[in-house]
């Protein structure tokens, strides 16, 4: 019979060897040893490392159902196009215009790009569950998607917990790169603060300084921060805020929220709604005759601070003449925008939305960062993205600010086109607001990025 206790008995030699090995290990990971000693060793030590396979898998988690489903469908189209271009298929799109670029059109670091998709249902819990499935079951090395800030913040936090990079799709809340920012999350899209800063001077010019505003606001993080930013902007202009009313996401019938506006004394209605909610609330506000009203001796005005062409399409005639801001518009004439619109149009028969643009750009930026870092190891990819300045992607010179992972670029103020020249010409660009006018100190929103190593 074997004495099992002897198996675990330590000899003095064994003890000394183990202690030496542990000491060396601790020194390496505490940073006491030169970095070159472990360079490349991390490659096998992170979640969903694709080094041993011929492909890299990306996860695209978009709303395929719910009030933001239209944006989600367009995002998915853009992701598919980005994958095609990264793998060297099609005309290359923005791969040909991006500067500086390390992309070669042979996948990412020579590995073919594959992808899986998920449905966020525009709900944070469903989005997290879908993202978790992508990471744990499908083995994605990076995931991306939108179009809700609630979803973006929830999945970004999951990204940090699991050590997998999340490239945000459409998310406009200040919190995404403010109090809820994460080291593993990056946002190319602009935010509510920038919308306010860009819109302010135009509102002053077009509507004056003596207005009374009434806000209807989607009741979640994006709505709250947009309301706050726009309210700060309009009050700085001298406008009075009559009321701010929160509405549930996906309310459908907004009549009970619109009727109080009629006799509130307000002469401006600000709709902090997006997607189907915005289409419904704007359509119903127009049905209630708000745009034909005269209040306080002025024409009643409606403002939609965050606009998209898809929403304009859904709202039809109602959108004409209404002011808002957008991250990008297909009618921009720079080489990057034109290359992207051409690729997207040839593929799908219509131009891309701003949601599609940001998702396409995010996928390319991640791929480029991997090429720059020479590895898929997330901390190195993150470092490559932080502070990265680029051009040729449709928004002019752009920078991924290292302090909060927010991209800074020009912002567009747009208006619903009263006389569209084509079926897609729904938004007229009123002003391209320079980056300097929408920049802010990252500390104003608080938050901590968190560690590189998780």
């Amino acid at each position: 019979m074997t004495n099992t206790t002897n198996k675990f008995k330590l000899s003095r030699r064994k003890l000394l060897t183990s202690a030496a090995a542990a000491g060396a290990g601790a020194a390496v990971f505490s940073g006491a040893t030169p970095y070159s000693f472990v360079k490349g060793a991390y490659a096998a030590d992170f979640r969903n490392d694709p080094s041993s396979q011929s492909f890299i898998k990306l996860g695209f988690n978009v709303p395929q159902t719910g009030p933001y489903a239209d944006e989600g469908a367009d995002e998915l189209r853009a992701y598919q196009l980005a994958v095609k271009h990264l793998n060297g298929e099609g005309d290359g799109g923005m791969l040909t215009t991006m500067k500086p670029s390390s992309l070669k059109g042979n996948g990412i670091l020579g590995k073919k790009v594959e992808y899986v998709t998920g449905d966020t249902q525009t709900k944070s819990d469903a989005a997290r569950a879908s993202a978790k499935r992508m990471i744990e079951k499908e083995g994605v090395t990076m995931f991306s998607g939108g179009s809700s800030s609630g979803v973006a913040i929830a999945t970004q936090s999951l990204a940090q917990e699991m050590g997998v990079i999340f490239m945000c799709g459409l998310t406009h809340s200040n919190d995404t790169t403010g109090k809820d920012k994460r080291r593993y999350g990056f946002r190319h899209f602009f935010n509510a603060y920038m919308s306010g800063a860009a819109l302010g001077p135009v509102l002053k010019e077009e509507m004056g300084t003596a207005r009374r505003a009434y806000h209807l606001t989607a009741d979640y993080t994006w709505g709250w921060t947009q309301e706050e930013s726009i309210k700060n902007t309009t009050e700085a202009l001298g406008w009075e805020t009559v009321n701010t009313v929160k509405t549930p996401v996906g309310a459908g019938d907004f009549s009970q929220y619109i009727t109080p506006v009629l006799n509130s004394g307000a002469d401006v209605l600000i709709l902090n709604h997006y997607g189907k909610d915005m289409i419904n609330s704007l359509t119903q506000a127009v049905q209630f005759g708000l745009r034909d009203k005269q209040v306080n001796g002025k024409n009643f005005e409606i403002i939609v601070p965050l606009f998209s062409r898809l929403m304009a399409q859904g709202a039809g005639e109602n959108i004409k003449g209404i002011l808002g801001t957008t991250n990008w518009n297909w009618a921009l004439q720079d080489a990057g925008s034109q290359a992207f619109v051409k690729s997207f149009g040839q593929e799908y028969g219509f131009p891309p939305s701003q949601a599609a643009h940001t998702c396409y750009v995010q996928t390319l930026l991640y791929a480029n960062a991997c090429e720059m870092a020479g590895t898929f190891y997330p901390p190195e990819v993150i470092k490559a993205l932080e502070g990265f300045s680029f051009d040729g992607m449709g928004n002019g010179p752009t920078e991924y600010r290292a302090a909060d992972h927010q991209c800074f670029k020009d912002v567009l103020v747009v208006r619903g086109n009263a006389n569209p020249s084509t079926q897609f010409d729904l938004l007229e660009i009123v002003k391209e607001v320079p980056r300097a006018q929408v920049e802010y100190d990252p500390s104003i929103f608080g938050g901590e990025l968190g560690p590189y190593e998780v």
Partner: protein
Amino acid sequence: MDAFVLQILNGLDKGGSYALIALGLTLIFGTLGVVNFAHGALFMLGAFCAVTLKKILTISKQVKDESITFFDAFKEVPYLEIWFGETGAAIIDYAVPLSILLAIPVMLLVGLAMERGLIRFFYKRTHAEQILVTFGLAIVLQEIVKAFFGANPVPMPPPDLLTGSADIGAAIGLGDSVIYPWWRLTYLLFAAVIIAAVFCFLQFTTFGMVVRAGMQDRETVGLLGINIERRFTIVFGIAAVVSGLAGVMYTPIVPPDYHLGMDFLVLSFVVVVVGGMGSLGGAVTAGFLLGILQSFASMNEVKEILPGIDQIIIFLVAVVILLVRPRGLMGRKGVMES
């Protein structure tokens, strides 16, 4: 005063849809004794009758859009417009009201098929089993709709003639802020007409008299040699038509999606319970009452005192009414009490 009138109108408008769904629900419960959780799905199917007709009317030819030079873009021009010009466009414009003609036979058939094919096997089963099977049926129906029409809401604008709003304030001598959309007023009128038609049918026709007698005492009516079961099957069909028509006319108010029925189902049951199980008058009264209360609860003055009250008012009222009058406002003795 202006705000008061507006909230009354809003409440009547909401109440109209609650009352129409609850009316059908109560008809089925009062005659067949079945708790039909698939009733919301009938509302949704009605809405998709309108969507289907619109899709049929707008079957289009793809025409190259020469104004787009970046890529090949196409415009969709409906054949109706190509063939009949302005008349074709006008037919498309009136797709929603025209859908009523389609919805009546379709919903009648759906109702009859549902009753004969599934519900009748559950007459003598417990209410819990009825709830389970009808809820399951509702999920099946909505998944079928999702498979055919997708998950996104489908915009269904009202006819151009009814897109604006009526200046009610000027008409009744109030301020100019009392304005209300023409389509919502049309919906309210439509709900009133349907409710009146159902009541007249039950009150003034022989068929209605037999049905009412059957609701009171099914066995005795059967002993008189009347095939009450056949009449109750027809009532199920009528209830399906009422809900379906409510769905058709609701589409310009909120673009329908496959989940529309579920959004209304819980509210409708609360309406039926508050009105009193099996009471048609109770269902209609409670529908309008709860619609108006919900509308007043959404007023900013009320929400300042009780934040979030607009989301829970209906359930709060249901709790109070059931505590004070356990059978609901007009409930009959013995219904669901055995």
